[in-house]
């Protein structure tokens, strides 16, 4: 099975086509820096102001038309256990009591609407998208339900409708994207009685947050959580306690999630480009090696054959020579004997006849 030039060019074309189709990935894997859509919105959560009243949870439930929970929102006993977002609760408030410390700290958690969301980067059908308002939105008409977004999210936010057998959705805060588009505030921000939540363009929120830190340096840590975490998040947080103590991971780093997968994605064109050439080359080499060894074998065989032939010929010739010699000798001997016999006969029958006659008779005898 040799490779014709046409076949080879065909494969090259196929490889080039594949690279062209997958080209988007290389671009996605490049070192571009994305600082968020200009003017995109976010929310500043000042945990020092939060009193854990759960009004935001209630508003969220109402605005997003989620099923009412069994325990009413007024019941603050739920704060005794740590909770996470669920498919029917886009936001939850948790209370953190540090031993011996004066006051509990309340922290609201919901989707942080990352500038470069891990979930959107992980989604293999683009069901999750970062839109220009700053919200990360979900399209259930595309979702396959693989839950890779939940694996990818560093904040463990997306939840899944596990009890829906055929049309389960991934559920998470939308930053009230429909309301924002109408020029309204997100439900939770609107409902907060203590202004622990401030909605606005992210750049402005960061300035505001830094101002608060500078003004009340004893009240706040010198850090805005979400300014750089995971490449920056739409929701940003202020706290007076180390963030690790209030249930927020401080080891996430400042790179967006997509930067962790850009390496492997960049390897795709390399493999797609290199492998066909390399493997065809290996095939050609092994094929050629086989061919050469076969040729060498044939040559060796024919050489041995030729040598053997010559030897045989020489032997045959020698044999022939001796054979002919022996044969001649035998013939001569026979002739001689016959002549002698004939001569004896003639002598016995016609002792007086002439020499000429005897020659004639001996010639006719046979």
């Amino acid at each position: 099975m040799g490779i014709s030039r046409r076949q080879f060019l065909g494969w090259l074309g196929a490889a080039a086509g594949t690279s062209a189709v997958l080209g988007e990935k290389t671009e996605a894997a490049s070192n571009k820096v994305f600082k968020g859509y200009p003017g995109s919105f976010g929310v500043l959560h000042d945990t020092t102001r939060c009193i854990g009243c759960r009004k935001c949870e209630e508003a969220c439930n109402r605005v997003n038309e989620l099923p009412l929970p069994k325990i009413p929102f007024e019941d603050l006993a739920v704060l005794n256990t740590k909770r996470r977002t669920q498919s029917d609760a886009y936001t939850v408030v948790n209370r953190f009591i540090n031993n011996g410390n004066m006051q509990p700290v309340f922290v609201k958690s919901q989707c942080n609407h990352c500038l470069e969301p891990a979930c959107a980067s992980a989604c293999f059908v683009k069901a999750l998208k970062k839109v220009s308002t700053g919200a990360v939105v979900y399209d259930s008409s595309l979702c396959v339900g693989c839950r890779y977004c939940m694996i990818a999210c560093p904040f463990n936010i997306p939840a899944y409708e596990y009890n829906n057998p055929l049309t389960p959705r991934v559920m998470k805060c939308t930053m009230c994207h429909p309301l924002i588009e109408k020029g309204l505030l997100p439900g939770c921000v609107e409902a907060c009685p203590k202004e622990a939540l401030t909605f606005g363009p992210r750049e402005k929120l960061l300035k505001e947050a830094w101002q608060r830190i500078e003004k009340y340096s004893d009240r706040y840590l010198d850090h805005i959580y979400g300014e750089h975490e995971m490449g920056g998040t739409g929701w940003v947080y202020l706290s007076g306690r180390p963030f690790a103590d209030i249930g927020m991971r401080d080891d996430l780093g400042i790179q967006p999630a997509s930067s962790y997968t850009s390496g492997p994605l960049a390897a795709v064109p390399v493999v797609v480009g290199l492998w066909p050439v390399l493997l065809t080359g290996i095939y050609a080499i092994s094929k050629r090696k086989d061919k050469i060894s076969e040729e060498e074998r044939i040559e060796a065989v024919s050489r041995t054959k030729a040598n053997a032939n010559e030897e045989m010929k020489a032997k045959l010739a020698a044999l022939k020579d001796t054979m002919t010699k022996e044969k001649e000798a035998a013939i001569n001997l026979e002739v001689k004997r016959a002549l002698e016999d004939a001569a004896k006969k003639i002598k016995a029958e016609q002792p007086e006849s002439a020499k000429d006659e005897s020659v004639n008779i001996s010639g006719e005898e046979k």
Partner: protein
Amino acid sequence: MSQETAYANKSIFTPFNIIASIIIIAGLIVTVLRFTKGLGTVTNLDNNNPWGIWIGFDLLCGVALAAGGYVTSAACYIFGLKRYHSAVRPAILTAFLGYALVVLALHYDVGRPWRLPYPVFISQGTTSLLFEVGLCVFLYLSVLFIEYSPAALEWLGLKKIRNLIVRLTLVLTIFGVILSTLHQSSLGALFMIAPSKLHPLWYSNYLTVYFFISSMFSGLSMVIFEGSLAHRYFHNKMDETHLKESKDVALGFGKAASFIMMGYVGVKLIGISIDNNWHYLTTGWGAWYLLELIGFAAIPSFMYAIAVREKNLRLVRWAALISVIGVVLNRFNVSLVAFNWQLTSAERYFPSWSEIVISLFVVTIGLVVYRFIVTRMPILHEHPDYQHDN
């Protein structure tokens, strides 16, 4: 003819058949529950642990253990090791069944299985490694189907189309190696997006390389392991060539596996050095990691080496079994054990009975189909009409 008498004498209630039917019935019951009550009823999955053994075992292990297809066909057709030719068909068959079952299992795991073609045909999320995995698995399953089909076509007596497909062998093999390289490595890369969730000993920038290299010796070991099982149960289906070559296959593949596993252990050590994760080795996680790396990679590698030197077929087979378990252990560690390692034990995942039943169900279907095919089609022997082909 001996086959027919064997069939006639044998009762249908063999131990294999009884166990297989129990598992299949249990699997069908869970299937009904899955598609009527949802994942919440049949699995222990939750919002913190969205992936369980249907991904960790059925997908990750299934794909890794089906790597024998690309490894064997590459050895035979690309690297020209023709003496392994009789191993190609069984390897391609198990790879094809393996991938088909991976896709079957995914139907249970994903929310809307009928949308599985979406990433390929409807909306391409090209920034996702899962997209790459999905596309490659889809294409590779098609390639494996074509690569397997000559056996079925010979059985059905469709000569023309069979000869046409056999002519595609080299192209399909190269295509298969490219696709396997991509998705075997990308299965590891899936977890690279979550450095905050996977334990540092298992998280590495080399995760793709680890998965790809381990898929190679996983494939080699599976070919040896399956070969030993096939010898026990389908010996009468093997022709002279197969029987003559099988020892050579086991020893040759064992030798290759030994080298690759040494390389694997080496690359793993480089990975630890680069991230300077040595101090983790003294923790409990470190002990578990060393068990995986030494007990289930370095030791079987040595076993292979000794077995090959002494031409000890039994030891090769044991090494293969331990290597296979090692690969399963590695995939479990990356996707389940060391994933979400920072959660409290109450928040961690452990599979439910129904999840295990479905995983067994899928494997059992594989065995039943495998048996159906090798007892009928020219897999372990050559079809008399095509003996001097390819």
